[in-house]
Structure formats: C-alpha cells, structure tokens
C-alpha cells in the first residue's frame, strides 16, 4: 500500500519489471500511475507491502534508490529564475556529472547557443520540458520514470526523447512511463500495464530474464 498524506493511493499492485524493459503505464486519471512512478522513485512511503527497486528494499530504506532513478512528473522541476545554463550546471553538480556530459545532454535536446542564457521562466512549456529532460539525462539513471514524457514537446523533441529512451534501454536501463498518447514511444514499449483504482487491472509482460525491479 502506498500512502499519500495517509491516503492509500495504491493498494494491491503486483508488478515485476525486467531489467532493460520498457513499460507503458495506462489507465484513467486517478488510477495511480503517477503514484506508482513516485513510489518506484522512493518518494512515497509504503505500508504493509513488499517492494524492491534496482535491488533496494523500499520498506527498509527508500532513500538509497533515489540516486539511481530519473523521475520526470507532470510538473517540470526547474528553478524559474535560473538561466538554462545555471540549471544544467546545478543538475550536473547534483548528479556528479561532468561538464561534457551536461553539454551532451543539452545538445541532445537542442539547448544550445542563445537559449542557454535565457531565464527558464521565459521559456515556452515545451522548451522547459526539454530542459527538464536534459536534467534527467544528466543523472544517467538506471531506471527512468516518466509521466506523460511527450506532453508539450514538438516533433523533433519527441523523436529525440524516443531515441534517448531507446538508447537507454539498449544500454540496460529500465524505462517505465505513463502515457495517454498512442505515439511512437508507446509502440516501442515492450509491455503495457493498465492501472485502475490503484490496482493493476491488466499486464502483458514480455519474456525476459533477470528481474531487477519488483513492486508489490
């Protein structure tokens, strides 16, 4: 059971995700998709459950997994007053990444030139989303947790994101994303899990070996 302000938001979720798998979470609003992603990131307390993510027991210690997870929710976690280059530098320092890695992530989402000196508050929603995705990329996560990752992105950025997620999976990372869209990334997902009322109502697992992420 995952608790949101003592409210049981997830109850009876039984899900096992293989390492290197890409899973798409589906379900109506309020089904528990966002809570499941946040729970996997170690941000939501659990009661009466067994949960292991990347080998970390979320009941015993839900803080240790966080450094290995990249989460991008509905909202973009950015400081509006910072310039794009300030934000990227902060993310690089936070995740102990080099300047080269930060530049590569920025370049991947076309955050170059004059754009780097613009205050984040002045960017469009799509541009802010690109900065947030660059920050997740800088973190080099083993588990990508994305909530509506394509929302607000233009075609080029969507393609860049799909390519990035494909590269991450090929490199052995696991990707779990919630989406209402029927775009390319959903088609690239190896499995679709449907949530309803805080429970998994349908799951079509792909064959694989070496379980690395279990949430129960």
């Amino acid at each position: 059971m995952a608790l949101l302000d003592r409210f049981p938001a997830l109850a009876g979720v039984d899900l096992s995700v293989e390492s290197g798998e890409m899973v798409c979470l589906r379900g109506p609003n309020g089904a528990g998709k966002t809570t499941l992603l946040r729970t996997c990131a170690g941000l939501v307390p659990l009661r009466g459950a067994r949960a292991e993510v990347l080998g970390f027991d979320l009941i015993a210690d839900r803080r240790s997994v966080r450094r290995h997870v990249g989460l991008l929710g509905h909202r973009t976690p950015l400081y509006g007053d910072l310039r794009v280059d300030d934000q990227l530098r902060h993310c690089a320092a936070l995740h102990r990444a080099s300047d080269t890695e930060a530049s590569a992530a920025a370049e991947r989402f076309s955050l170059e030139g004059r754009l780097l000196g613009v205050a984040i508050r002045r960017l469009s929603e799509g541009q802010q989303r690109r900065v947030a995705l660059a920050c997740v990329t800088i973190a080099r996560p083993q588990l990508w947790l994305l909530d509506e990752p394509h929302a607000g992105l233009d075609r080029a950025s969507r393609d860049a994101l799909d390519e990035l997620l494909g590269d991450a999976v090929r490199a052995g990372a696991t990707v779990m994303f919630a989406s209402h869209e029927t775009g390319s990334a959903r088609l690239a997902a190896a499995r679709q899990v449907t949530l309803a009322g805080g429970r998994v109502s349908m799951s079509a697992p792909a064959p694989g070996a070496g379980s690395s992420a279990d949430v129960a």
Partner: protein
Amino acid sequence: MWREIWLICRKDLTVERRARVTLIQIVPTVLLILVVFAFAFDANPSLLGAGAGGLFWVAVLFGAVLGAKRSFDIEAEGGNLDALRLGGLSPAAILWGKAMALAVQMAAVAVFTAAGLVVLFSVAVTDWLLLVTAAVFGTAAFAICGCLYGAMTVGLRSADTLLPLLLIPVAAPVLLAGTRAFDVALGTSADQGWSWTALLAVVLITYVAVGWAAAGPLLEDA
C-alpha cells in the same frame, strides 16, 4: 555532507543573483518598515534613538519571514524538492544549505537596515564589536529558524499565513536578546550587552540542535 550543503547554498545564491528578490523586494520592504515607524513616532529623535535596537530586529525578522518563504517557495514550485531528493541529498544538507544561503541574504538585509537606522534615526554606535557579534548571531538564528519553519510549511496551501504565525513567536528570544545587546552597543542602555549576546549564542546553538534533529522528519515527507 559539506559538498552537498555548499551545492544547495550556491544554487540558492545563484537564484538570488538572477532574481535579486532580496535587494529589490525584501530590503526596500524592511527600509519601509523603518520609515513607517519613524512616522509613527512622529520623528521624535530621542524616542527613535531609544527604540532603534528593537526596530532593527523587528525589521530583520520581517525580512527573515519573507526570505524563508521565498527560499522554500522555489522548492515547492515544479517539485524541485523531489529533484533534490532524487539527487541523493540528505534532508540535513538541504536544510543547512538553504539556511546558509538565507543567512547570507539576511546579512545583506541587516547591513541595509543598520544603514537605514544611521541615516533615518541618527543613531551612533558606541561598541562596534558587540553590535557586529550580536547581529551575526541573531541573523544566523533567524535564518535557521526561518528555514526550519519554511521546511515545515513548504507545499501547504496556507503557508503564506502559517509561516509568520509559527516563526515570529519562536524567534521572540532572538528579538529580545538582540534588542538588549543592541541597546548597549548603541549607547541607549547600560545593561550587560555581552550577557545578552551570550544568550543569543545559546539560542543559536539550540536552533542548530533542533535543526539537526528535525531536518529528516521535516524534509523527508514534505
């Protein structure tokens, strides 16, 4: 731990450098408080001089409330606090990093407030060492206390009104001891200025101890 504290402090100071909220909004508000008090006391020089120490700390306390609110508003916005947690930062590092940055900002507010007192109230300092020591301890205490309650109210819908309601009573010992120490430093009282400064140090140490104990519960599930 120090690397993490510095990372948060540097980020907050960079946000301040870009937005200049302290210089453009908080300092003018604090100076306005001094002007309003001057009007309220009917520009009576002896009355203003006698109350200068107290006015300094009231003004800085209001500045600390605004600064603490702002410091945690930027973390609530867009879920930035989650992003810091996902960076593996400990709650203590987040709290102390923010307290350090707020202390720097409050030091700037204190300097401008002191300058305002000299210009508007024509006060003369008789003991600079006592004045500076008390100001350092007091502003640091306000910063820590502000961050503690900022962390407690972050994300709450009623944070705007709840923060001053919680912070001001708890900061009262700093206000009292700081005022007494300043009265001596400004030559308006023959009290034991250093005793009051020692009390400020004790209050500061108490806030630090509470901060270490409360950082986890406050910021882990905020």
